[in-house]
């Protein structure tokens, strides 16, 4: 039943995009399109949640696509969980765009594609055979590409689009091969038949690596992430939010579907591989982010980091499952899924905030912003909550899911294999490191953007975002707080999906207030209660302010900043993104990015300004992309001479081909 509902929603979305195409310039187009999208996504969301609660599986086969195969669709708990995430993000983005989209300069470039994009993502999640899956997958890529290049006047937007589409098709081919192996020689492309027959060890490994390549390139695992920080900033903000908060999750879904569901039992070593990949991705993602001064690019890199965290969780789940510790596996899987939801919530929120800022100031470069908390206090509030959530601070949701992942990592002593025993805590430590770095990064992002004094006129003249956008932001902020305070609700909701993956579930969380706390596994009676923490914080705050009110001197005077007695300095003396990150850059980036600082001091008496430069070296780009691009260019140049040969030479080619083939005949027959 739910699958039918979702498919109807998809059809409705496609209808909306078709209807929007000709009318996108009309004044009401924005409202109508996004309103309709929001409603349809809400409907799909309700279907998904219903399926999740009922943990029922419904399938449907339509006579489309390959005739002898048909198009299989299915909604099982896993799909339902991700449908919920996708459509939750869809609703949020649509509502935000109701307000934000009105400032869109080229609506005809955005309106028709957003519903199609949403439809594509929904289709990927419900697809139940390789053809339908890849069809919707590529459709998703194509529509999102169209959205990325929607502001096509700037060269780097187009470059971003190119890198994105090439990476996307590369990933698709990798997935195609993965399915090719899974389908076996007789091409059984329905997932049901893929589940049926198992694979050898080598084939399993090949599929896992192909899945990492295919799904990972879309999700943005290091070093395949390069398209992500290019494409996300280029798109309009609601699209960035969708791509960063939702589409990457669809990629994670693809990975889970292939590796957990279709692939069957997996060797623990492969689990180690996934953990390792996730760890490296998390660390590099946040380090990249710290080096940025473009707000949206910074957020994009944080997506990379969080994808890494999710993959660590998944890898732990794989490893536990391979060893038969289903309870621990369920814990890790639940943690990963919970983080998937959390990330989509706060990342969308943050991109909305960035969009509001860009809208108000026309700037994405943090070093030209500052002091926005005065001009746009509500936006600042929402952004602050998102920043705190993504920095894994209690009592918000980011902390809850990372806490669960840590708890899963703490079960590593149970592993019989040394490798895992050592790797799991190490990766936990690196996750903690990346969480701390993330906190630093968002102190930087929020501090430089919203606090301090305006660094440019654009920032001075900013004004608050419109009501609807704010509503969307605060809605998401509320979701972050709610999921942080009563994570039990969500883990219970996600339990069927985790059970689908690991045949076990974490204990049902006691939801009787006020002891709504998380109990990962019965064995180690650890627990965490966001609710109690939040309550205590509120009480403590109340008491503190009350005490201040009663006992303290309430007189407050405004005056110039003390600043160690320096006279009022220009805003340019404030810490910028670069200077804030300098200590961390010194500590980490010298190794990670070969960061080099050069200072050029003019000779004494020379009035020229001193110049400070930082050179960073992007390993992913330098070691992976640049060589490939160079190789293609080189070959293209070499081969290009064949366009300019003389007719005689072309005849020569024919002649030699003939003689060659004849010789082959003469020798080998």
């Amino acid at each position, binding site marked *: 039943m739910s699958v039918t509902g979702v498919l109807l929603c998809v059809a409705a979305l496609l209808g909306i995009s078709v209807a929007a195409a000709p009318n996108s310039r009309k004044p009401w187009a924005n409202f109508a399109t996004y309103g309709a999208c929001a409603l349809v996504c809400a409907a799909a969301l309700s279907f998904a949640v219903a399926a999740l609660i009922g943990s029922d599986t419904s399938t449907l086969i339509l006579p489309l696509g390959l005739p002898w195969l048909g198009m299989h669709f299915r909604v099982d708990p896993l799909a339902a969980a991700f449908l919920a995430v996708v459509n939750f993000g869809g609703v949020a983005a649509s509502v935000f765009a109701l307000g934000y989209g009105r400032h869109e300069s080229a609506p005809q470039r955005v309106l028709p594609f957003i519903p199609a994009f949403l439809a594509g993502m929904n289709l990927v999640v419900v697809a139940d055979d390789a053809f339908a899956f890849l069809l919707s997958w590529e*459709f998703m890529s194509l529509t999102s590409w169209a959205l990325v290049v929607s502001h096509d006047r700037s060269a780097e937007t187009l470059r971003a689009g190119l890198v994105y589409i*090439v990476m996307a*098709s590369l990933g698709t081919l990798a997935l195609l091969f993965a399915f090719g192996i899974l389908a076996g020689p007789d091409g059984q492309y329905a997932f049901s038949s893929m589940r049926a027959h198992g694979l050898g060890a080598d084939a399993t490994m090949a599929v896992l690596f192909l899945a990492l390549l295919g799904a990972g390139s879309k999700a943005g695992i290091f070093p395949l992430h390069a398209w992500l920080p290019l494409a996300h900033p280029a798109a309009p903000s609601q699209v960035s939010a969708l791509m960063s908060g939702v589409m990457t999750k669809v990629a994670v879904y693809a990975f889970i579907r292939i590796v957990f569901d279709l692939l069957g039992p997996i060797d623990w070593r492969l689990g180690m591989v996934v953990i390792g990949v996730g760890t490296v991705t998390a660390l590099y993602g946040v380090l990249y982010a710290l080096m940025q001064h473009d707000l949206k690019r910074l957020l994009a890199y944080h997506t990379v980091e969080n994808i890494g965290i999710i993959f660590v969780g998944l890898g732990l789940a794989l490893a536990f499952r391979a060893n038969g510790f289903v309870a621990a596996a369920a814990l890790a899987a639940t943690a990963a899924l919970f983080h998937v939801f959390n990330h989509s919530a706060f990342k969308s929120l943050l991109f909305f905030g960035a969009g509001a800022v860009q809208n108000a100031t026309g700037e994405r470069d943090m070093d030209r912003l500052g002091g926005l908390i005065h001009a746009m206090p509500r936006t600042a509030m929402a952004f602050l909550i998102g920043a705190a959530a993504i920095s894994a601070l209690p009592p918000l949701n980011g902390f809850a899911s990372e806490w669960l992942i840590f708890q899963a990592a703490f079960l590593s002593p149970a592993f019989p294999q040394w490798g895992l025993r050592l790797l799991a805590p190490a990766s936990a430590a690196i996750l903690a490191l990346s969480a701390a770095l993330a906190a630093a990064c968002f102190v930087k992002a929020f501090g430089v953007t919203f606090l301090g004094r305006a660094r440019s006129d654009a920032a001075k003249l900013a004004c608050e975002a419109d009501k609807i956008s704010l509503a969307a932001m605060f809605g998401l902020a509320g979701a972050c707080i709610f999921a942080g305070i009563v994570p039990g609700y969500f883990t219970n909701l996600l339990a069927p999906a985790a059970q689908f993956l690991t045949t076990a579930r974490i204990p049902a969380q006691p939801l009787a207030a006020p002891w709504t706390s998380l109990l990962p596994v019965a064995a180690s009676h650890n627990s965490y209660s966001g609710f109690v923490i939040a309550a205590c914080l509120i009480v403590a705050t109340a008491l503190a302010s009350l005490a201040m009110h009663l006992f303290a001197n309430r007189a407050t005077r405004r005056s110039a900043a003390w600043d160690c007695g320096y006279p009022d300095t220009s805003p340019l003396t404030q810490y910028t993104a670069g200077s804030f990150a300098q200590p961390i850059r010194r500590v980490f980036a010298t190794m990670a990015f070969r960061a080099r600082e050069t200072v050029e001091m003019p000779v004494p008496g020379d009035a020229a300004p001193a110049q400070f430069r930082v050179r960073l070296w992007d390993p992913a780009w330098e070691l992976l992309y640049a060589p490939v691009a160079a190789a293609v260019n080189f070959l293209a140049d070499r081969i290009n001479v064949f366009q300019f040969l003389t007719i005689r030479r072309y005849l020569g080619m024919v002649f030699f081909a003939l003689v060659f083939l004849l010789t082959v005949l003469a020798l080998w027959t």
Partner: protein
Amino acid sequence: MIPIAAVFIVPLVAAVVLALIPVYRIAAWLNVAAALLTFAAALALLVWRPATPWHLLLVDDLNIVFIVLNTLVGFTTSVFSNGYIAHELEIGHLKPAHLRFYHAMYQVLMGAMNLALLTSITGLMWVAIELATLTTILMVGIYRTHEALEAAWKYFILGSVGIALALFGTILVYSVAQPVVGDGLPAMTWSTLAAHAAQFDPAILNIAFVFLLLGYGTKAGLVPLHAWLPDAHAEGPTPISAVLSGLLLNVAIYAILRFKMVLAANPATIAPGPLMMALGLISVLFAALMLYRRRDIKRFFAYSSIEHMGIIAFAFGLGGPLANFAGLLHMAMHSLTKSGIFFAVGHITRIKGTQKISAITGLTTSHPVLGWIFVACVAAIAGLPPFGVFTSEFLIVTTAFAQRPWLAVILATGLVISLGALFMRLNSIAFGEPSGDASPDRMSVLPVVFHLGLVLMIGIFIPGPVVSWFRHVAQLLG
């Protein structure tokens, strides 16, 4: 009997008439009418296949596919050229006399190709293909510019040599068949050839196939025999580029397939598959890399045609029902998409007044409808869903992967490389600051939209009859 004859008689008659009509408007419409009539006759063949008295002609599931496709694209192209050529006259690229010649030649080309597809006699097919080649050569040179003349000349020389090789192959086939099935026509008829191929002398049959593959492969533009193709596409009138890419290449492939079937019927011969796969892969990689340095938009898409011919050759070389099915599907999809692209390119070059890619930018801004149609076309030819090319490429790559993984990987590499090039150019053409004037496009985009619609339809839903029919053909091909 009537429809069969009509399929190639109508065009030939129309050619004579068109050669006599001085008024180009009437001629253009007559051209459309004749093409439509031919298409109707071809459709009639779908339902009713009369036995031909003397076995010169034959209609079976294999060539009906090609005939219907051929006449269909021929019709849409005539509709397109109706608007296009008129404009050429206005801006003085062509004189009325040229137009008469053009229309007549167009019909001759159609008739020749249909004959090549219809006839059951190897020799006759050779003659028809040579005729088609000559007409296209003349049309390529129609602009009389130095570039056009050189392109025509190149095409002429390489084509003639290719034709010569093909003829020798045909003679060889005859001379191995003659001792078995006796003198005269039977030794040149598909049916008898396929029937008795088992007794033919394998060694000479091998040699024959090499010659035929290279001879007709030259027509199909397989690397390294492709040299004529890009320039011919770039310098000729756009409708002819569409017909070349969409149809003539298919006819050449068809010829190769026929002989492949004969060869396949004789177990003692070499397997033609590997040869075709090798040529196909070479073509794909070569063309994909060549795409990066192209600056002329028509030559650019000509190379993309080479790439797709490579894919098709690869698919048929792979063999097996699924791969053959995919090959047929890909051929149909490519004809529709590529001719559609050339229509769109015709519009574009006309609007922007140049074929230089660097001089064409911001199309989606200056002409949104045409621009997005073009984007859709390129996405389709790049093998992105929801278009039919995706379906066929999905089948080809997966079947190849199941049988020969490494070849599939090579093929996939070629696909990605070419996709990169396609989108690199698409970026600069469709997006960015619009160049040239934004004067509205007066020509109807109906033909393009029609092709695109078909491709889209196949991409999502392939009608049952088409499937069963293609499958039967795939079985035939073995």
